[in-house]
């Protein structure tokens, strides 16, 4: 007998056991995804917490031992860690701030009606979809002091006399990586805001026009308030993402020169990848995780719970 087929016409006395069996079979649909996330996300997170309690430098296996909160104490007294937090703040504020403003501008442009809009939209998307390593390497080339076009153009228009090694000068390096990151992130905001703009019904604008509102008044009193939800979601997602995003810095400067571009997530990577200090890297991961969770919790509270996220 086909027991799945008879579920829709249940016999009253069998209900409970059928129900239990059905629940079990329902859970099997989730099993592969649960195993995947368990093995590649949840277990590693617990593992990271566990690892953070040990001194564990791969190049010195003889020193492996339990040190309790030793790594966390070391972190509190590590000036580089505090420097990376400050750098992360600069990195996030300037990257997301400019991405938002410029992305908003691009969204307003793309919301106008003109021929070839889809074509322009696709071109505008390109910086966002290409691999991070490509972004990093191309910008490294653009900044290159002798053969890179940025120095060349600045010299041709007379703004520079001597070429600058943008990514090797501590003063300019952070601005350099942020600029590349802005270039990469503009499309994200423009897509989100464009979607928001297109969801505003025309009638609202018509009513405002009938009431004599000028285009600037319509922008401040109609467009912006109606975009508020999407702006909140987009900005919050972007802040978390940018805070954690290490690829670009890893490729372009590896945190240098002299930690000038070292953000907390790239520092985590450096500890694991270059120093092979897994205990400390895991400690940094746990701190990153906590910062992220706190931010997400505040954000969810701010937007009043799950409903506004899952929509």
């Amino acid at each position, binding site marked *: 007998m086909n027991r799945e087929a008879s579920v829709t016409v249940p016999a009253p006395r069998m209900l409970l056991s059928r129900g239990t069996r059905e629940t079990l079979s329902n859970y099997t649909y989730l099993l592969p*995804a649960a195993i995947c*996330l368990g093995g590649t996300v949840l277990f590693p997170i617990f593992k990271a917490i566990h690892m953070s309690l040990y001194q564990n430098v791969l190049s010195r296996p003889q020193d492996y031992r339990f040190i309790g909160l030793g790594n966390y104490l070391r972190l509190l007294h590590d000036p580089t860690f505090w420097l990376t937090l400050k750098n992360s703040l600069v990195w996030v504020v300037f990257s997301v701030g400019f991405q938002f403003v410029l992305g908003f501008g691009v969204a307003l442009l793309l919301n106008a009606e003109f021929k070839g809009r889809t074509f322009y939209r696709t071109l505008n998307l*390109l910086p966002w979809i290409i691999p991070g390593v490509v972004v990093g390497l191309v910008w490294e080339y653009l900044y290159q002091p002798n053969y890179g076009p940025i120095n060349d153009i600045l010299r041709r228009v007379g703004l520079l006399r001597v070429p600058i090694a943008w990514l090797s000068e501590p003063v300019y390096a952070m601005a350099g990586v942020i600029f590349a990151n802005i270039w990469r992130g503009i499309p994200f905001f423009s897509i989100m805001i464009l979607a928001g703009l297109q969801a505003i019904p025309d009638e609202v604008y018509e009513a405002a026009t009938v009431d004599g509102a000028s285009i600037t008044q319509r922008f401040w009193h109609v467009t912006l308030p109606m975009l508020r939800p999407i702006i909140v979601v987009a900005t919050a997602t972007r802040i978390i993402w940018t805070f954690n995003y290490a690829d670009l810095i890893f490729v372009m400067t590896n945190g240098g020169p002299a930690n000038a571009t070292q953000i907390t997530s790239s520092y985590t990577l450096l500890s694991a990848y270059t120093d092979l200090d897994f205990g400390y890297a895991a400690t940094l991961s746990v701190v990153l995780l906590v910062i992220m969770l706190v931010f997400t919790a505040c954000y969810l509270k701010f937007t009043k719970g799950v409903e506004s996220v899952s929509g």
Partner: protein
Amino acid sequence: MRTQRSGDLPERILGGPVLWTGLAIMTLFAMGPFLWALSASLKTRAELYATPITYIPVHPTFLNYVEAWTSRLTPFSRFFANSLWVSSVTMVATIVISTSAGYALARFRFVGKNTLMLVFLATQMFPAVLLIAPLLSQWYALGLVDTYQALIYSNFSFTVPFTVWMLVGYFESIPRELEESAMIDGSTRFGAMLRIIVPLAAPGIAATAIFAFVSSWSELLFATTFTSSTEMRTLSAGLLYMAGQYEVQWGQLSAGVIISTIPVAVLFTFLQKHLIRGLTAGALKG
């Protein structure tokens, strides 16, 4: 009634010169770096290091592509094949796993379903950096370092949450009655899902598949950390490896950049509509 957008003077200026200037600047800014890489990839060695810099290759050549593709130190043909294999397997496996989970979350009632959805949402935001140290020691323990499996399994950590999240939405938009009537006709729940729901959700599934492929294709940190030999590197890891070699060969590197970009650019133009819908669905309420 008046046509609504012909209004006052500032509006006409905004719709005319401002719009076209803005579009021109935007496009130049977005495309400039690509055009530079494309131009550099077609230059001869002498021209790459000549002063003053040229912006359009004087003697365009495909030599850089040929050299990058066949190089023994940084074999792009091998990197390309590795990327293709890792991304394809990740894509197929992700789709099987996520279709099943997405269907269950869309159709069945579970205890703690909302919490589970929140977990899927939150894991999307988990940074790869956070997982590097624990995953590497995990792959060491399992003897999987420097294998395709390590890369494919690690990629699940970001492909599965996003695709499940997107597929739940697609499945919810398909009426339940369709598979319920099939089940009355004697089909199993699983059979009904495969024969009725999956074909109807095919466009959504295809879009999430492309997403899984493209994001695996671009993945860098796992690919760099979990492989050690040159012949196991993917395009992203291979490009970084190449940039770290002796003196940077900008010509070959630019050719590599173009080779890695074209597949994702082509796929994304197909995916655009679906991706935007998936991205903005949460923020726009339905």
